[in-house]
């Protein structure tokens, strides 16, 4: 819709590679990119596709190990820069470009703020350094901006520190700080990936609003198809450092040309496809019951309060909630990693909460857990085989041969075969790591598998594969699954029942996932609305 307006940023022939251990690993292969005044362009790609490198390259923030082979940057004000010059020589006037021409938003907004400076100091420093305001004007300018971004009490905010604010608030503040210099182009690098659905929705709509309000040009970098569809005018798809497709958002999503784009869309629809699950048999026995569980580290701020939940045999139950609602702590209590302050956890009628030593370890055979960051849960120095054998060794199951056989079997089950069984995590992909983690959990033949955000951080393709794998294994080995996530669409497609958690408790019991939208709880409705907005509504 803005196709006719003037080009505000042109990147040509951008080639970037990383040096590691003597050899150069190319990341971007001669990328061309043009942004026009006032449009929102989405740069879509999987992790490792080079999209963040692009953002850093055009703002001159590449680490020293990166090398720009070629590339030029032209900005509206007649600024033209040869990016290949930028190897620490200081020949490029970045100070004139950054902030005033190009503003950048980072994925983890809290990390992007200096932890020992108040928000007000950030504004002050930014404004004064660019001579955009006199010292006495700083407060009024920043207050005005913050108010515009929906903060009703900006003065309180100005005197707070980043660690006192939620991730969503930090991202909004970063946006405000970026906007106070009135930049022409805003580059947002995965600005919402670290946020839960509600905050995600808020931040995206703010970016959109600001764009329309101030005539900003936005380059939004994301791996999330929903985000791309919700906010962008134009989509550019990046695969392994190459531009594979670009076009208007409607066109790309309705008639994808490139094979890669088509695959992405297919995976996405798999992941978020409405549930086609048979509802569980009414007769099935209750396997796990959480009764009025209470957990707090600090008496004033309980994390889990009075949470109750049941999990039947062979049932898949989803726990949905915003970040910080206590769902992970609940999972850790069930897995025996935390001792609850009050309440009980019954496994087939026996209380297993707060067991120590040998008794706790015996429960490990029956309850297993898969973590969000699979790679971090695996020891980097051990092979896949060894990693899967670990629990068998810990619990002294079988002799050496039996262990090897068992491990091989389960590794094959999750699709790690042949030579890959003898590789170590650093040489394996994120998806493979998650598969090993699953194999490791299943090798003990547990009755309950807890998946704590097990697929949240993954690219949609891998997400789809892992979910498919879990479904197959569930069918085959007949364990129950407790799926913890903030992603409504994933849970809806995967779980029989969903329980919504907020503020450390379940507002109502578990609901059949197909009937979740019938819930009368306002919080459930909010979660559904935000997710739904992203799915279907353009912001």
């Amino acid at each position, binding site marked *: 819709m803005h196709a006719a307006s003037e080009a505000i940023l042109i990147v040509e022939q951008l080639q970037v590679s990383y040096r590691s251990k003597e050899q150069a690993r190319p990341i971007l292969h001669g990328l061309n990119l043009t942004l026009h005044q006032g449009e929102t362009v989405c740069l879509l790609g999987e992790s490792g596709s080079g999209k963040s490198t692009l953002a850093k390259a055009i*703002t001159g*923030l590449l680490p*020293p190990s990166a090398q720009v082979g070629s590339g030029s940057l032209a900005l509206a004000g007649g600024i033209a820069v040869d990016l290949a010059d930028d190897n620490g020589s200081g020949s490029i006037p*970045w*100070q*004139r*470009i*950054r*902030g*005033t021409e*190009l*503003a*950048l938003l*980072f994925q*983890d907004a809290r*990390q*992007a*703020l*200096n*932890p*020992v*400076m*108040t928000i007000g100091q950030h504004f002050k*420093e*930014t404004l004064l*350094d*660019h001579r955009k305001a006199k010292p006495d004007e700083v407060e009024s300018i920043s207050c005005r901006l913050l108010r515009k*971004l*929906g*903060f*009703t*009490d*900006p003065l*309180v*905010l100005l005197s*707070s*520190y980043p*660690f*006192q*604010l*939620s991730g969503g*608030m930090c991202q909004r503040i*970063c946006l405000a*700080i*970026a906007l106070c*210099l009135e930049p022409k182009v805003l580059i947002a690098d995965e600005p919402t990936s670290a946020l839960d659905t509600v905050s995600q929705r*808020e931040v995206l*709509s*703010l970016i959109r*609003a600001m764009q329309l309000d101030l005539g900003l040009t936005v380059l939004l970098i994301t791996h999330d198809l929903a985000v791309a569809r919700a906010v962008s005018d134009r989509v550019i798809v990046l695969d392994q450092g190459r531009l594979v497709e670009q076009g208007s958002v409607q066109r790309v999503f309705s008639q994808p040309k490139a094979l890669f784009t088509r695959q992405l869309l297919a995976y996405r629809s798999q992941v978020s496809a409405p549930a086609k699950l048979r509802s569980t048999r009414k007769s099935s026995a209750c396997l796990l019951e959480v009764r009025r569980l209470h957990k707090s580290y600090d008496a004033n701020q309980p994390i889990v309060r009075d949470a109750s939940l049941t999990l039947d045999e062979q049932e898949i139950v989803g726990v949905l909630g915003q970040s910080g609602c206590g769902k992970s702590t609940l999972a850790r209590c069930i897995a025996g990693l935390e001792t609850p302050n009050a309440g009980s956890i019954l496994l087939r009628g026996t209380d297993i909460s707060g067991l120590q030593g040998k008794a706790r370890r015996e429960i490990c055979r029956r309850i297993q857990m898969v973590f969000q960051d699979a790679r971090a849960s695996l020891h980097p120095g051990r092979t896949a085989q060894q990693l899967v054998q670990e629990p068998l060794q810990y619990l002294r199951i079988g002799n050496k041969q039996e262990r090897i056989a068992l491990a091989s079997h389960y590794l094959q089950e999750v699709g790690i075969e042949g030579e890959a069984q003898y590789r170590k995590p650093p040489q394996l992909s994120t998806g493979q790591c998650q598969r090993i983690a699953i194999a490791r959990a299943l090798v003990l033949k547990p009755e309950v598998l807890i998946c704590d955000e097990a697929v949240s951080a993954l690219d949609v393709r891998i997400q789809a594969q892992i979910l498919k794998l879990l479904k197959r294994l569930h069918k085959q080995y007949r364990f129950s699954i407790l799926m913890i996530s903030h992603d409504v669409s994933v849970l809806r497609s995967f779980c029989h029942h969903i329980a919504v958690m907020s503020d450390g408790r379940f507002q109502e019991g578990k609901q059949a996932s197909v009937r979740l939208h019938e819930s009368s709880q306002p919080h459930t409705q909010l979660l559904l609305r935000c997710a739904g907005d992203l799915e279907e509504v353009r912001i």
Partner: protein
Amino acid sequence: MAVLLRKLMEALLTLICATVILFMLIRLAPGDPAVLLLGQPSEVAAMHTEVYEQKAAELREQWGLDQPMAIQYVSWLGRLVQLDLGTSLHTGRAVSAELAERLPATLQLTAAALAVQLLLGFWLGIVSALKAGTFSDQLIRLACVTLASTPAFVTGLCALLLFAVTLGAYEISSEASWSRLWLPALTMGLASMPQFARMVRANMLAELGQTYVLAALSRGLARRRVIGQASRNALLPLVTVTALSAATFASGAVVIESLFAWPGIGKYALDSILRKDYPVIQGYAFVMVTLVILIHLCVDVLYAYIDPRLQRKRRQVTRGVNEHA
């Protein structure tokens, strides 16, 4: 407030444990203090043993050396509470007075050496971090490592030889005057600087890798300002180190002080240890231990002020936000 109180209690407990160890150590050390006091070799070895023994017994009683350990400890503690550190066996003067006399000289030297260490260490550490991996970084690190590898008494002796004898620019006397300060301060500061520089460099590199540095750069802030921010954050954790090295300096650089005839606490402590002047060693060690514990306490409290992240009691800001824009 409750946190402060708990810290205070902890510090007190540490202090009490320390006094027990101190007391045991000194009491177990060889040599009867009474004999040591009386039996210093003098001109003629003709002591009349009855008188001598009688005197020694009197002294033992006076110092309470013949009582059970526990009682000695309690009475010692009781005197400590009244700030009575005892009387030097060697000079017969109050230990507190003797320590107080030497404190200014030591503090003077401490301040100067600390200044050398901080200024030089800070500067070299930051430069080295900013130029990490380059030739100048390697050069600075090599220089620091070399300096750290040289025994302080070697450097000190060479400096003394050069400045006092060859150049005649330094006056050797026993006085703690300002004109005599620079050489020991420089020697001491240079000896402890490399470690500090190394920590500054490591912390600075860690800070420079943080996202907020990138974010600040992306806002087009001046290089100097970004470095300033990062170095401020890099130095925060070094407050403890600095305070502790101040404590180490204050407890007396034994070798440096005796080499430069600086009338400070370190030399006094060494002399007393060699002379087995128990009240002095006890008093000295007690003061130093208390000092270190106090410094730890102060640093804890100080952090609460300078590092906002540690102000746990601060509420989360949730007010003042529209749920929807």
